[in-house]
């Protein structure tokens, strides 16, 4: 019974002392991620610190641009950075991240092949990002407003929900959502006018533009909204953790999917600690605990998803092959595209005033 504890203790002590021998601060792992997104869970940090002797120092960003600027302007400060796969190219081109020796990550072998081999993360056979979790920007509904869940994205435009629809205040997401509603490929939008017309007709339906999970959950809790765009992990968290009447709907037209991955910045001082941290983040044990305690997106590690109960949302709904067929993963977009999307989105918001 006491064996694992003893081993863990011995390993921890060994790692700790050897780290001490090299440099005073080498046992710190500086992690850059969104706030409240797994890596900064106190129980996780504690478990990792106990197992490896590394001390985790979390830092946060509010936008991908801010994240890129932080690693650019603080070379050597961060050991692990969470980068959305669509931004991996940009980070690699800017020589901000280094190839990862995946042989040091025992859990890497269990990552699903399509995610691990994603051309967004692997360049010239070198791995620049370790897939962590993925999720959807789909629709979520207030269960009190529906007898049976809708199947089509057109529900957002239904006059019955006028003034009770929400959408996230994010230009890229809004435009890609418009692309799905007009039957287009989110990564290759041919008919931008159709997207604009579709979103223009959506605007009068909108109650507000949400920007955080808390906004969404509060509006459902006070029964102010019927339907809106929402992240899959957040919808799950709202249902299981906050016990709110929220259900995720993956409409037949499709949904936007994103993949988050961990990278190691160029000049990281504690690469070994970074590898240990990333390995821990993709570990089934951490993942199951994260899902149960907090609610989380879908792990890229197939073993981690299999460790969930049969009927778990992330296994049953998100693992459904029918869903997999409908979703479209976000690919990198250029700065020019991003600015054009923002201009369109701001114009829509001004026109509806």
């Amino acid at each position, binding site marked *: 019974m006491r064996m694992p504890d003893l081993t863990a203790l011995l390993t921890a002590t060994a790692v700790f002392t050897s780290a001490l021998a090299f440099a005073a601060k080498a046992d710190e792992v500086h992690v850059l991620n969104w706030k409240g997104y797994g890596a900064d869970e106190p129980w996780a940090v504690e478990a990792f610190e106990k197992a490896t002797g590394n001390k985790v120092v979390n830092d946060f960003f509010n936008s991908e641009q801010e994240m890129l600027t932080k690693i650019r302007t603080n070379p050597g400060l961060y050991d692990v950075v969470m980068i959305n796969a669509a931004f991996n190219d940009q980070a690699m081109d800017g020589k901000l991240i280094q190839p990862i020796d995946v042989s040091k990550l025992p859990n890497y072998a269990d990552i699903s092949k399509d995610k691990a081999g994603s051309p967004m993360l692997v360049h010239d056979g070198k791995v620049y990002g370790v897939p962590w979790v993925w999720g959807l920007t789909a629709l979520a509904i207030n269960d009190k407003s529906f007898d049976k869940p809708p199947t089509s994205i057109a529900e957002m435009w239904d006059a019955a929900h006028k003034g009770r629809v929400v959408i996230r205040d994010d230009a890229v997401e809004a435009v890609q959502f418009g692309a799905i509603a007009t039957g287009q490929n989110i990564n290759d939008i041919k008919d931008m006018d159709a997207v604009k017309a579709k979103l223009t007709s959506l*605007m009068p339906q909108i109650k507000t533009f949400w920007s955080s999970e808390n906004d969404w959950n509060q509006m459902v809790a006070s029964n102010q909204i019927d339907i809106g765009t929402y992240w899959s992990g957040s919808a799950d968290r709202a249902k299981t953790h906050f016990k709110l009447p929220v259900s995720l709907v993956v409409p037949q037209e499709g949904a936007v999917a994103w993949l988050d991955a961990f990278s190691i910045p160029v000049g990281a001082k504690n690469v070994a600690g970074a590898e240990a941290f990333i390995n821990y983040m993709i570990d089934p044990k951490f993942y199951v605990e994260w899902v149960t305690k907090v609610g989380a997106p879908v792990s890229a590690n197939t073993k981690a998803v299999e460790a969930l109960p049969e009927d778990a949302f992330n296994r049953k709904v998100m693992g459904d092959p029918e869903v997999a067929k409908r979703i479209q993963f976000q690919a990198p977009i250029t700065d020019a595209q991003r600015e054009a999307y923002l201009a369109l989105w701001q114009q829509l918001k001004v026109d509806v005033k």
Partner: protein
Amino acid sequence: MAAATASRSGLRSALPLLAPAYLWLTVAIFLPLSAMVFFSFMTELPLSGKPWTFTLGNYATFFSQSLYLTLLLASLRLGLEVTLWCVVIGYPAAYVLAKVLKGRSREAIFLLVILPFWSNGLVRIFSWAMVLREGGILDTALNAVLPFKINIDLMYSYPAVIIGLVHSYVPYMVLTCYLTLQAIDDSLIEAGRSLGASRLQVLKRVIIPLSMPGLVAGAALIFVPVVGSFMEPRILGGRTGTFYGTVIEDQFVAVFNWPLGAALSFILLAVVLVILAVASPVLRRAA
């Protein structure tokens, strides 16, 4: 000659008193603001590590897209409306505080006026969100009292933004007006009354003119920050909550385009300064 020496020595003795404030202003306001002026003429933020050059493009963006002008006008209108409501609500309160209440009761009311200052702005706004929404405190309370059913859902609307902003800024108006009203000698009012002026005439001919500096100062203190406000519109305004300030915030926070955000801010600063410059002779005459 003697006067010049005196004033110089006066300055010298005042220097130790002035230095901390000016040093602080230089370090905390002038330097960051100059950096922002510098950024507003750049193509890229130097922090981003990408090559950059000087450009007027950020300022040109304001003029090339009608949406910025539309939003600026909307924000100026918001500033005017909020200022007006602050006068309507704050001035009578200041009058009562200065001229009617005395002693303990004045202290108590004064405390109530200043109380909003002591709470965090975000907390104030979120408490308004609880009050204003459908099924919120206002809705429930009114329906509990009234015999008929009414539906109050002010949340996510323009009135909600006005309410939130007026609540945040009305203390400025009360305080500035209170100071000038309190300085009015009561015997002036009594003289007016004893010479046959009605209460209204006294108000129009004596009290308002004499308290005008306070009104003007309060209006300027309120108008300027409201025009650039972003937190209240974003949280309370919903679909109608897009203003000039929120667009600037987007440039800084969401897309990390500091140069454009800085340029938009300085255009706002210029417009506000022009408005104050144009208004000041009129207001000074009135005062």
